[in-house]
Structures are given as structure tokens and as C-alpha cells.
């Protein structure tokens, strides 16, 4: 397909399984940036990461539902993380798609930029500080201290719950 995919998850899956099981205290996260902040999603939950694609907006949908994407014949719902997290900083022109499957439906999370797959140690885990704004905190399961910054972990099931309950 024209929209070439960077199948990160495929490459890293083996590592996740092998490493994760054996060591137990390390896990891997697929990272991305939204408004300059670093977020991570459990790498096993990410189906793929896709370049910016044409989005069909959905009238009447909440602000954070950006629209629909044709992902190789599958209709995927694009969710704007900026809108979801309440981040107002100037958005880029195009977004990367972090595609996950939540509750059986394909969801593309719109990120500004894609980072690496990061392996983190359990000992570096911290609970989400209370100072993190509630909008974001409700989706976070915690943070990891990585070499040069902090990685906020997003629990996509909480996003799924939010989407279904809120709407």
C-alpha cells in the first residue's frame, strides 16, 4: 500500500516476549510524543504505526474523535490525543497513527512524533504523581524514569473505557 507502514511492533514483539518473560522486571513500551511530552504504550498492544493518512471527519462526534481512516480496507477511528489529554499547544500539520485494538475495534491514536521502543526496568516505575492534570492522569498507569526523561505510560484500556462510557 502507498501508506508504507513501519511495522515496529513486529520487530520488537519477539524481544518483548522473550525478554519480558525471562526477566520479568523489564518491559517494553512503544513511545511517541504529544505536544513535546513523551508517552508510552505497552508494545504488545500496538498493532502498528502508520504514517499520516487521509482522515474523514465525523460530524457531531466529540472533539477528540478526529475522524475515520482507511487502514488497508479496515475503517479505523482516529482519536486525537491532544484533545483527549487537553493539550492545547500548537498542533503539527500531520499526525502519526499509533494503531491499537481496543475492545475489538481498531483505534488510531494521533501522535505528533514517534519515538523508539524503550525497554524499562520495573525498579524505575513510579505511580503517577498527583500533580499531573486529571485529564491525562485518568489514562495513565504510571511513569518510568528513563535515561534522559520521564516516560508516561498510557493504559489503552482506560482510553477504551473512557470512549465507551463517555459517549
Amino acid at each position, binding site marked *: 500500500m502507498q501508506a508504507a507502514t513501519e511495522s515496529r511492533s513486529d520487530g520488537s514483539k519477539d524481544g518483548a516476549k522473550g525478554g519480558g518473560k525471562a526477566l520479568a522486571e523489564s518491559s517494553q513500551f512503544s513511545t511517541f510524543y504529544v505536544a513535546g511530552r513523551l508517552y508510552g504504550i505497552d508494545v504488545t498492544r500496538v498493532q502498528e504505526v502508520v504514517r499520516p493518512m487521509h482522515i474523514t471527519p465525523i*460530524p457531531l462526534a466529540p472533539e477528540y474523535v478526529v475522524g475515520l481512516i*482507511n487502514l*488497508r480496507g479496515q475503517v479505523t477511528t482516529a482519536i486525537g490525543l491532544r484533545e483527549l489529554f487537553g493539550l492545547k499547544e500548537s498542533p503539527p500539520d500531520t499526525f502519526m497513527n499509533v494503531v491499537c485494538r481496543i475492545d475489538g475495534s481498531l483505534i488510531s491514536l494521533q501522535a505528533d512524533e514517534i519515538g523508539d521502543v524503550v525497554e524499562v526496568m520495573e525498579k524505575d516505575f513510579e505511580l503517577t504523581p498527583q500533580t499531573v492534570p486529571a485529564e491525562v492522569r485518568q489514562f495513565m498507569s504510571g511513569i518510568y524514569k528513563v535515561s534522559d526523561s520521564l516516560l508516561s505510560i498510557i493504559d489503552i484500556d482506560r482510553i477504551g473505557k473512557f470512549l465507551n462510557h463517555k459517549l
Partner: protein
Amino acid sequence: MANGNKDSKEEAALIEYLDECVEMLERFTKNLSLMESGKVSPEMLASIYREMHTIKGNSQFFGFSQVGVLAHAMESSLDPVRKGTAPVTQILVDGLYQGADVISTLLAGIRSNHKEPDLHVLVGELVPRLVDLSSNVDQDLNSPEHQGQKVEPSGAEARSTTDLKEEVSLPAANGNCMALEVSLPANKKEIELGEIEGFVLFDDLPDPVKLPETPQLASSGALESESISKLEDVSQSNLELTSKFGDQSPKLIGDEVQSETIRVQVALLDNLMNLVGELVLIRNQLLQHTKVNDSDSEFDKMSQRLNILTAELQNEVMKTRMQPVGNVLNKFTRVVREMGRELGKKIELNIYGSETELDKTIIEAVKDPLTHIIRNAVDHGIELPADRKALGKHDTGRLNIKAHHESGQVIIEMSDDGRGLDPKAIGSSAVHKGLITADALAKMTDREIQFLIFAPGFSTAAAVSSLSGRGVGMDVVKTNVERIGGMVDLASRPGTGTTIKLKIPLTLAIVPALIVKALNQRFAIPQSKLVELVRIDRSDSKSEKIEVLQGSPVLRLRGKILPLLNLSEVLTRKIQESQEGQEGHDRQQNKEMKINPFAVDFVNIVILNADSFQFGLVVDAVEDTADIVVKSLSSFLKEITHFSGATIMGDGSVALTLDVMGISTAVRLSAETEAAAGIGALGGFQEYRGRHQMDFSEFLMIDVGAPGSYVIPLTVVSRLEEFDVEEFELSGEQKVVRYRNSLLPIFSLPEFLHLPFSAKPAIKDKTPVVVIRRGDSLFGVEVLQIQDVAALPSAIDQTVRDRPGILGTMVADDQVLVVVDIFGMIDAVKAKLAVEAGVEAKETDIGIGASSKDILNKRRKLRVLIVEDSSFFRNYMRQILEEAGYLTEIACDGIEGWSALENAEPKYFNLVLSDIEMPGMTGLELARKISDDRKYSHLPLVAITARFSGSDFERGRAAGFTRYLEKLNAEKLITEVDELICQVSSMSESRKELKLASSN
């Protein structure tokens, strides 16, 4: 040929049943093992429970009583655990495992020889144990007697085996050898054919805990030799099969079954489908490419070939998933018959449209819901023949299932003519069960209350029967149907019947659609909803015009008024919070829609058909038609009812498909419960569309001080009065006038209708008031000016009735007239007055008037058939009569009226009210027909007509009408009907009589 077809259909249904049961059993045991290991979750318990419920239901359909009885017992034993009143015990789990084993043995037997093998011994031993578990939850731990007798935790298995051993000499021969094999391999040798006779007897034993040999054997003489030989065959074949059973070979099914078909995972077909979808897209792109670069003719040829092949492939893949819905529906014939027999009810089942094709997954998904609905209808809906007779119904209950395609959806409609849903019983039961509060109940409409049957944990049945009524049923119906994006609709009239309508999307079907543009975006509209396209040239004065009616634009198209919506506007309007919509605050929602700015010269209007009415949708552009594959949206987008799904266009972009019904409901265009009116002896929904009679009635034209012309039917007007401004007083907030020794409440139309005033009415000395009589009460309508009385064709278009208080519109001399629903308004005002005064409003009700309960009770037993083609008058009369207590049924022309009579018992109806001018069969013809038939000699016929002269009267009398009544005269109607069939000469006299009677 037809016969063979039927057989193979039944055969297919049976195989399907077996496959399904096996699947469910697998899931069941898997969950059971989880449960045993302590991982108990409410969802899991619910799923286990439902699984058993379904197995039970299906088995009873097919008449496999042992499976049914056992599943019922297992279900019962799970009930306390599910409700959280009992813990999961080892005894329970053991019992359930055993039950599952027995069921699978039974199923295997059914599969090999289409007959339930006799395992009554095992079943009979297990059932009481399981039932005990459910009923003795509280005591079973501290009642050693029970444990000792019935449940020995560890020894249960051993016990059943010993029991069996004792009896094995008897049952061994009865074609259930493989069952015995499984549990008692050591006894194989004892299987003999000689003792067959003993066996058939067990078939109907209700509770064979013990098996005393003698009495059964004694009656064995009754056995027919034919069945003995059959049994012999059966057991022989079973003997051959036993060895195969032993090693669990999957080939048990028998050679004849496995040849033609293979079972494929539906997920595989889904993938195939998606891949084909992608292929189609690539094909489209390729074709586009070849069009541009057409120099290479070889390449061109190849791409054409690819094109054709792709289309064929797509078609075939699509077909792999389609099945006629009859596969499921035909099962019900048997189910209904057997259930009817068991319950002693006479039921006639009619299935229409069983050839309607539906996607396999969808068929699977609706199977259970349909089953539950049918069972409920038979069990709870249809009355016993004696009860039906007492009610004047035909003693055979009717159950209709209709399936058809409608605008990209499959509609399955099940209607019965049973007792209907009683809102009172449902309401109190729901409150009792804590599903809703009494306060909430008080605010609910009957229809909303009826919908409570879909609430989880609801069941009105006082006793749990094996057939239905444990409160899982309707809950499952709703969740299952909604899971596949469908809808459940319900319409029920207590006493006359219930109709449940499932609207199921054809998610995978290719839908021809029209592509339109709005908001710079493309949208697809299913062709089936499309009526026509209208393009209005604003510079051309001869073209159709858009007019504004009470702030809403309408299109007058060939004399018909169509409401207009602008797609761009509809799609930008915020979704209205409808949570508090219950109270009917909807009217406040001012839906002033403007089609402006009409900067453009042309307006494109797509005329759409939404169930029972049409409306126009203004779009920015009409693009093209295309075949689309509708894909469902994420579940959290389902709330936006405007869209039914999304589709991928030829160029790879995504377009949303519009849900025409969804849009019309979202903007509250549709008349609310059109459907609810259509149920009656005629069965099911009936739609009366565009069949208006062209007769004339007189209307009072009034100026209410708001734009537009308003009319009131003259027959409801009692007097026209004028009052001085000083005469108006306020009683509380209600404006009143002293009038004939009493207070006349005055209300104003614009206020009631929330109409914007075009100009503040000038203060005048005199205000004209239209006095309306309703029953014994008078009401005044304050108007600005009384204009005229005009005879107008009473063809009332009910499409545009966007707020309470409006009956519809009429077109006369190119003028749009709004017909005011005076009675509706009075009802509202009366309710308000009653609240204010704290008095019961009932006293003033029409007809009920001062009449006592006796009259009311009398009326409640009398049934009037209303034959009238104009839906407005039909509903009007129905309302009047029902308010007075009469039972009514409706027919919309003479032919229907006649068939309603013919289909009922001769004494079912007590009176026929008929219009004269009707299409098809006129009232006169109907009257002649009725009076020619001796069995209707008791039946008074009353003609209702707008105008009549002496000669009309004579002709009517000759045809058999006893009386002539004027349309819309409510009071007269009740009095006459009372006089004719209630043996009450007139209201006032009846009152005297009653007074006398009560003083005596």
C-alpha cells in the same frame, strides 16, 4: 420435491442445533473448570447460565425432553450462585460436570440416529440432585439428611454407577448403548436386544428416580410392533457405533452427514471478505490507471479480465456468508407446535419471507433472541383457548413471523394476538424488583414501561416455568441484537397483542447508495431510502417552492407537504441531550431550521423515505451512485444516530453512510409511536399511507395572532362568544371567564404551541373566544379573530406535526392550513388544572362524564369495529371510544373491515362504525354484505360521514345502516353508541337511572 426440501431443511436445522449445543457445552465446561479453580466472575456465571438457558430452549424446541429437563435443572442449580445467594460448591460443580457429560452423550445419540437415546435413569438421578442444590441452598450445609440422601460429595459418581448397574439389565437394550458404554464399559456384554420392550416407556417418565420394573413392563404390550423393529434397527446401529464412541473418534457423525459441507471459521470468511475488499480497491485504482494510460492494449485486456474476476470473486465470497433466515425461522414451527401442545394452547404460526437472506454471523446472533421472543409469545402472550373464547377472540392464537429486507436492513417482526403487555403489572414488578423507583415509574409512559421487559433481571412470570421466564430472556434479546448493531422495537396493546420488531443491519451486504456532498465531505445514502431527487431553481418561478411553516422550511411537492432538513445543518448541530426527554420537554426544543443563506441559485433536495413518512434533505451536491460495503463504526460512535456506518470509496477515502431513520428521529421529525396504533385482530403492523378520503368537512378558520393559518374542525366547536377585556380573570395562573354560572378556562393557542407572535395582538375591547364542549365541560380558546367557516377536503396530512397540539396540515386553494388538535390541548390544560386544583380530572372526561363504574364496566366488554380510510378520523374515533371505555379495532377500508369480521367470532364485535366513501369497498357495500349475512343480524351498523342529506340517509338505511352520525362529534358518538349497544338511552337518563338504582 417440496417434501424433500422440508426434510432437508429440518435435517439442516437439526445438525445446526447439534453443532451449536456442542459448542456451547464446550464453552460451558471450560468456564466450569475456571469456576472450579476459583476464578468466578459475575459475567462468567451469567454466560454459563445463559448457555444452559439456550441449550434448554433449543432442546425443547426439538422435543428432546431429556436434554431439556437436564439443562433446566442445571440452570436452576446455577441460579442461586448467579444471584450471589450461594457459594460455588464442589457438589454443584460435580453435578454440573455430570450433567454436561450426560447432555453430550445424549447429543451424540441424537446425531447418529435423530432420536434421543434413553438415559432417563441418569437424567432422573441427576435432576433431583441439581434441583435440590437450587432449592435447598440455605439448609444444605447444615442438613445432613439431605446430604446423605441426595448428594454424597465424593461418592456421587460411584452412586450413580451402582444405581445403573442394578438397572442395566433393563435399559441396556434401548438404543442407548453408547451411553452405557461411556459410563459402564464393563457392562458391555449385558447389552442384549431381547428386552427392547421395556424402554419406550421411559420416554415420558417425568421423574424416574427409581425404576420399579413391574408396572412398566406390564404396559409394554401397548407398544407397536413397528416401533419395536425401529428400535431394533436403532440399537443395532448403535452397537456398531459403540466402538467408535469409545475412542472419541470425530467421525461419529455418520457418513451421510459429512459429505457436502465443511465447517469453516467465520473469522476466516471475515478475513477473506476484507481481503476481497482490498482487492476491489486495488482493482479500481488499476482501472483508473489504465484509463489514463491506454496505450498498452495488452495491459488493458488483462486489467479488464482482472476486473471481471474480481467482481465474481467478490460476489462469491459474499454468498458464502449469506443464508436464508428460514434456516432459523423454520425451526419455530416445531417449537411452537410442541410448546403449544405442552401448554394446552392452540397456536397457528405463519412465517413469511423465510427466503430473506442474511449474513451468517447475523443469523447466528439473532437466533437466540428470536427463540426467546417466540417462547415468550407462546408462553406468556397467547392465552389458553378457554380464556381467549371468553375474551371473544378466536380460540386459536395467531403468531406471525415476517422477515423482509428494508433499506439495507432486515426486519424481522413477530406479532401475536395474545394478551399483550400490561404496563401496570410490568411497572409494579419492576419497582418490586428494584429496577426502577416508584417515582421514576410514575413519570414513565406506558410504552416506556413496556420496554422495561428488556431490563436485565426482569421477568413478570409469577412462576418459573421450564419454557421461559427466568428474566434472562428479553435481556439477552436486547443485548444480542444491539451487539450486532440492530434495534429492538416493541409495540403492545394490552388485550390485543404484542409485536416485536427486530431491525438488523446487513453489515456485510453490498448496498447500492447515492453519494452526496455536504460540509465538503461525501456521505452515502442507501438507495432503498431514496424516493426522488428534486432540484429547485430559485430563479424559475414555476419550479417547486420552499415555504416556511412555523419557522420550519417545507417543500410543496405536487401538492404534498414535505418537511425539509439541511444536511449540513443537521450535522453541525450539537447532539441534544435527550436524557430528560422523557417528560416530553421535547416541544421546547425549538427546531427552527433555516435553509439560508440561499446564496446559490439551485437547491438539491434528496427526498427520503423514513418508515412511514417522507422528508426532504437539502444537500450541497449530488455526486454519483455507487455500490458500497457498509462497515460498522466503533461502538462508542453508535450514539451518533445519524450514521449507520462507514464505507471505503473507490479512491480509498472513507465516507460515512447516513442513517435516514436516525436522522429523522434525531431531529424529532417522526410521529412517535406510529407503530403502536397498528395492532389489532388483523395482526401485526399496518401502515396506512396516503389513503385519504376526499370528503369535505367544515372547519373554522381562525387568526391566532401568529403567522400561518389555523383551523379547528367545526364539529368540536360549541359556540362562538365575545368577552369584554374586563371579564377575564385569573384563577391561579389560569385565565378564566364567568360563563353560564361557571368558570370557563381560557387558553391561548400561540402560548400553548409556543409560537412566536408576529405582532403583539392589539388590545381591543372584545376578545373572540371559541367555546369547545368536551363531555360536560366547556373550554374557551382565545383567538385574535374568527375569520371564516370553510368546507375543506378533510384529507389531513399528518407528516408535519412537529409539536403537540397540531393534528396535521391541509392544503386548500394553495394555502397551507394547520389543523389544531383542540382535544389534545384540552387534555394538557385539564391535566394542568387538575394539578392546580388538586381535583381529579377524571370527572370531566368525555363520555365517562358522570357515568358510574357500571357503565364503564359494561363498555369495557363491548368491542367496536371502526372502518374508516382517513387515518385522522380513524384515530380520532378510536381515541374517543377508547377513552369512554370501549374496546376498538380498526380497519382502513371495507375489505379490511369485512375480513376483520370474518376472522373473528361472529359475536366478537358489538358494533360497526363505518365511513361511507372509501376506496376498494365502500361503506354501503360493506353494510349490504354484513346485513346479508345472517350471523351478523345482531350487529348494529352505524354510518359516520361528514355530511349527509335525506337521500343519503335513505340509501344508507337500505344498505343496512341503522344510524347516521356526523364525523367528529364526540359527544353524539358516545351517546349513540351507548344507546345502541350499552342499552342506555342517553347520558342524562342513565344518570337518573343509576341514581335511582343506587338509592334503592
